[in-house]
């Protein structure tokens, strides 16, 4: 159950922090780790798995914002425990630093060491709760400007264009005060849904799944209790039946396949009125994760056509249509499609008056890329690409190209229809009225159209 060392390495393999808790792993473990990850070639994989063993030492790592968070141990521990721990350490550090990147790390390494000392003692996890840690931590974070937010950061979603939201709030440290010394009383509840859809070549939906999280970040003083009410018609589980046997006939309710909860959540009244109550700890944490395979309307429809045009030429036409209301705007949309590997050139033709669109043919990876800054609900966009081949193709050209994949973010939209009906803060005083932000966002996880 215990780890021996914890360290964070930069992408170049430099030590950013290093802590040895039990002195049982030989020296040079950081180099061993980095060399192994960098030059991983085993079992045909180009990418090192998160867990491997070198000379009896087990190395665990997760990648967060381009940094390696690594733990080593000689003990046959629970792999989930260590990976979860690494992820959690990253989150605690982010709670403190506000922004997690190499720069903020380097500026605050003393604070990070302070945290690590309290999180783990002699290899055993003590606590990863930002709330609990607060009373043991004395260093003040040196705040780094969140200029370059990594896209992996969930907070980043909200800084991209949505004006209604105080984008900086989610990147502030849990211990830092606002200018002026007063903390703003506020709480954020984000409903983040990552959707995966695979369309067959005829446009039929092969698989679809929503992986959702209700994420909370509280800056409320005095730890008041919070009640979070979800849709009353929410159903969980489908008995013994397979989720894929399901045909959406039994009413219009939101049906989750399954969900799990943060340990602070109390479910006393959940069964009767779909209300979660909790005393939110400080820092960012998922209140609830859920999974849904109930059919939903995919936000984009993709139509791809490849036509041969002579022996060394072909034309690709990609059409995307936004299937959501016109007051919703999707942003940072990217469409990608691998082209046959004998493609030597691609010239693009956008529709008339197209704005905020960029096209690219990545020669080395033979990848077609189409970026759209935003797409308004109901709109349709088309891209034509003329391909030139370096050799004659034989066989079926559609087997050599595709599939088309999309990434996008749609703020204030969620496909599952799961909603936070209200957010109640139990505090007696009538003048107490903190800011409450309930935000929805839909993101593409794996959005693929086969051709």
């Amino acid at each position: 159950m215990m780890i021996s060392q914890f360290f964070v390495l930069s992408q170049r393999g430099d030590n950013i922090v290093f802590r040895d808790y039990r002195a049982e792993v030989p020296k040079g473990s950081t180099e061993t780790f980095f060399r192994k990850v960098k030059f991983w070639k085993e079992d045909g994989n180009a990418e090192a798995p998160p867990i491997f063993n070198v000379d009896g030492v087990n190395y665990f790592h997760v990648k967060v914002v381009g940094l390696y968070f690594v733990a080593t141990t000689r003990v046959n521990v629970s792999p989930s425990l260590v990976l979860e721990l690494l992820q959690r350490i990253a989150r605690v550090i982010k709670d403190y630093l506000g922004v997690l990147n190499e720069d903020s790390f380097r500026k605050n390494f003393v604070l990070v060491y302070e945290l690590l000392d309290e999180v783990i003692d002699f290899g055993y996890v003590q606590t990863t709760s930002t709330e609990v840690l607060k009373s043991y931590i004395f260093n003040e974070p040196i705040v780094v400007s969140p200029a370059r937010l990594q896209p992996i950061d969930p907070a980043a979603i909200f800084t991209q264009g949505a004006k209604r939201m105080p984008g900086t709030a989610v990147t502030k440290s849990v211990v830092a005060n606002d200018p002026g010394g007063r903390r703003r009383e506020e709480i954020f509840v984000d409903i983040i849904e990552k959707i995966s859809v695979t369309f067959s070549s005829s446009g039929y939906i092969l698989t679809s799944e929503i992986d959702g999280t209700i994420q909370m970040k509280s800056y409320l003083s005095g730890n008041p209790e919070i009640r979070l009410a979800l849709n009353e018609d929410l159903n969980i589980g489908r008995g013994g039946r397979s989720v894929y046997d399901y045909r959406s006939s039994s009413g219009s309710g939101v049906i989750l396949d399954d969900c799990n909860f943060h340990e602070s959540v109390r479910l006393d009244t959940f069964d009767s009125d779909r209300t979660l109550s909790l005393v939110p700890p400080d820092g960012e944490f998922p209140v609830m994760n859920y999974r849904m395979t109930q059919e939903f309307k995919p936000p984009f429809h993709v139509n791809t056509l490849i036509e041969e045009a002579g022996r060394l030429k072909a034309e690709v036409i990609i059409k995307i249509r936004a299937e959501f209301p016109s007051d919703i705007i999707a942003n940072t949309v990217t469409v990608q499609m691998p082209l046959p590997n004998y493609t030597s050139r691609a010239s693009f033709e956008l529709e008339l008056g197209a704005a905020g669109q960029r096209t690219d043919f990545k020669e080395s990876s033979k990848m077609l890329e189409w970026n759209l800054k935003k797409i308004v609900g109901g709109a349709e966009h088309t891209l034509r690409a003329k391909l030139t081949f370096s050799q004659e193709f034989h066989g079926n050209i559609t087997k050599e190209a595709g599939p088309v994949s999309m990434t996008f973010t749609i703020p204030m939209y969620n496909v599952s229809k799961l909603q936070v009906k209200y957010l109640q803060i139990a505090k007696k005083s009538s003048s107490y009225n903190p800011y409450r932000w309930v935000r929805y966002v839909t993101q593409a996880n794996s959005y693929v159209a086969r051709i």
Partner: protein
Amino acid sequence: MAPPAASQRYPSPSQPSGKSEVSDLKTQLRQLAGSRAPGVDDSKRDLYKKVISYMTIGIDVSSVFGEMVMCSATSDIVLKKMCYLYVGNYAKGNPDLSLLTINFLQRDCKDEDPMIRGLALRSLCSLRVPNLVEYLVGPLGSGLKDNNSYVRTIAVTGVLKLYHISPSTCIDADFPPTLKSLMLHDSDAQVVANCLSALQEIWSLEASHSEEACREKESLLSKPVIYYFLNRIKDFNEWAQCLILELAVKYVPSDSNDIFDIMNLLEDRLQHANGAVVLATVKVFLQLTLSMTDVHQQVYERIKSPLLTLVSSGSPEQSYAILSHLHLLVVRAPFIFAADYKHFYCQYNEPSYVKKLKLEMLTAVANESNTYEIVTELCEYAANVDIAIARESIRAVGKIALQQYDVNAIVDRLLQFLEMEKDYVTAETLVLVKDLLRKYPQWSHDCISVVGSISSKNIQEPKGKAALIWMLGEYAQDMSDAPYILENLIENWEEEHSAEVRLHLLTAAMKCFFKRAPETQKALGIALAAGVADFHQDVHDRALFYYRVLQYDVHVAERVVSPPKQAVSVFADTQSSEIKDRIFDEFNSLSVIYQKPSYMFTDKEHRGPFEFSDELGNISITPEASSDIVPAQQYEANDKDLLLGIDEKDDNKGLSSNNGSAYSAPSLENSSNITSQMQELAISGPATSATTPQSSFGFDDLLGLGLSTAPAPTPTPPLLKLNPRAALDPGAFQQKWRQLPLSLTQECSVNPQGIAALTVPQSLIRHMQSHSIHCIASGGQSPNFKFFFFAQKESEPSNYLAECIINTSSAKAQIKVKADEQSTSQAFTTVFETALSKFGMP
């Protein structure tokens, strides 16, 4: 403690060597040391930060130790913390200097601020300097009694640290009993959790030489303690919950009510967002219900959804860990995810390590009802840009085909792969088609027509080429061009770099020759000549052998090289079911990730809480057993192997049932050795299936430890006949020992000759073996020796386990017997005592 000392030795060129910087720091620190000027703490903070930052990047700053300590007289807690960090890191290398720090640390341990008391105590215990342990006992003692829970939490872990520096000091100070009482009475959950982990570690290590520690360790698994923890599990944080759940796994419930009570207590842990908590709970559920088939099945149904949610809600790394466990479960219970196969479809942006596991899942869940969909999906991946995944996908299709579902449709798809004209796709497909034909010869017609049209020039990969050549030889009569293609290949013998391909060419030329002699004769001649001249030993030998056997008699040659074949019904599984069971026992550990039981990748002391070796683990395997006896056996086994007659070869019970035990021959060093051999066998399984039973017969024999070395006539025991070749692996033994109730305890005396012979404990092991009672572990030192034995009934797989403690000074033996069949345990004990009484007799 903090920075990696290795980089001190190899400073990266981009980083400053730091010599001058360090001496600068030294001077500056010295100036500040005595200063009481306002703002001095701020300057100190800056300097300390510099020191720590040098330490992190690997510059040796141990030379400022004295100055750091001098500056540490401060009330600034941030400064103190940095100083503690520094001291902890360099104390071990500078024991003399460390003495300097003891003073101020001890003083801080009595500070009125509990935070400082705790921090100082933690640093004090982290110095890891053996000759300073005497200074730890006092502060630890008062730390354990501190009224602040933060200090107590640290003190508890401090006790464990002390134990690791000096076990005797820790035991003599009576700390373990104090921890036990804290564990059962403290109001703070983290103090309790730390007591549990500290005591588990201390007692496990102590148990090897202390009966009392053994008992204490057992007592952690008693019903009151388990329920004490489980009833208040929600008071603990998620990590401590994992600790408690791991403890609960080892608990042996008294009856089914007990089982249901525990499951009801833990039911809601399955909804936890932390995957580690969920997996630990799943393990408890699975282990508790092992003996209740119906409930066990329900557990599978119950855990399915939470696990699937974890796969999709976490980071790819976490998904990887969970998927590895799903794979283990699905192999045991394929039905559970059969309807959920779509969850294992790959997403295009997943890392390849996740995709690979998902492909394995898809192969494992395929059955009559979903094969068509799964194979259709896999075919999509075959055109994937990620070539490694494309290959894996094709292999997955092949594996599904070999599982016999809907072969018809699959063969069609495989043949379509060949039309894709991508080298790696073709190569992978050929290998599969070859295996498929070995299992389903009836498809040869369809396959051969397609395979025949493939140009051998387009295949570069040895495996694919070898497969094509095999088919050319095997189906020479159906492929009109076969002799000519082979001839072509043989003419390019020199350019063929792979020995595997050249071996296959020789064999294929022979086979083709038997069927179409006139067309092949010339090519075969060239091949044999080239082969005999080949620098590769195997190729040379095979060519020479073919040449001679042809010279002797062509018909004999045909019978040897190309006998009529039976279709392969089941390809050898790469892992025995016993290994799989072993991994299952180690659910929620690295064994699942590596797909190996823990003894294969980690040394004994680090196997962690997953080994059930409560008593057994304390006893080391005698050096004789590991270094002497087993290898001797091995040679013998090999020799015997060569002498095996045909009849014995057919006896392949070794392959199916016993080779798993061979993995766990009770010797660590050798098990890795054997493992590698076994793996080789497993890998070459299909190709050398004819030889596999032979070799594993050898391994099988190896388990009958000492049988052939000491072929003493087995005396017929009065009541009970024991199986002289009984086999039981240590894991199974441990589990049984844990689960079975004690049926008999007996004390008897050992004759003086026996005591004299015990100077070599190994001799008793050999002696008992000649009575069909096998030793699984032994240990101890004069005058106390401890042995664990097992035996099996001759006629049925009913086991007897025995613990035997012999005290040489009192000449007494204490025997504890556990048995599958309670009714015959007396009979066994009699056999055992009789055998023991003859020990030492000429």
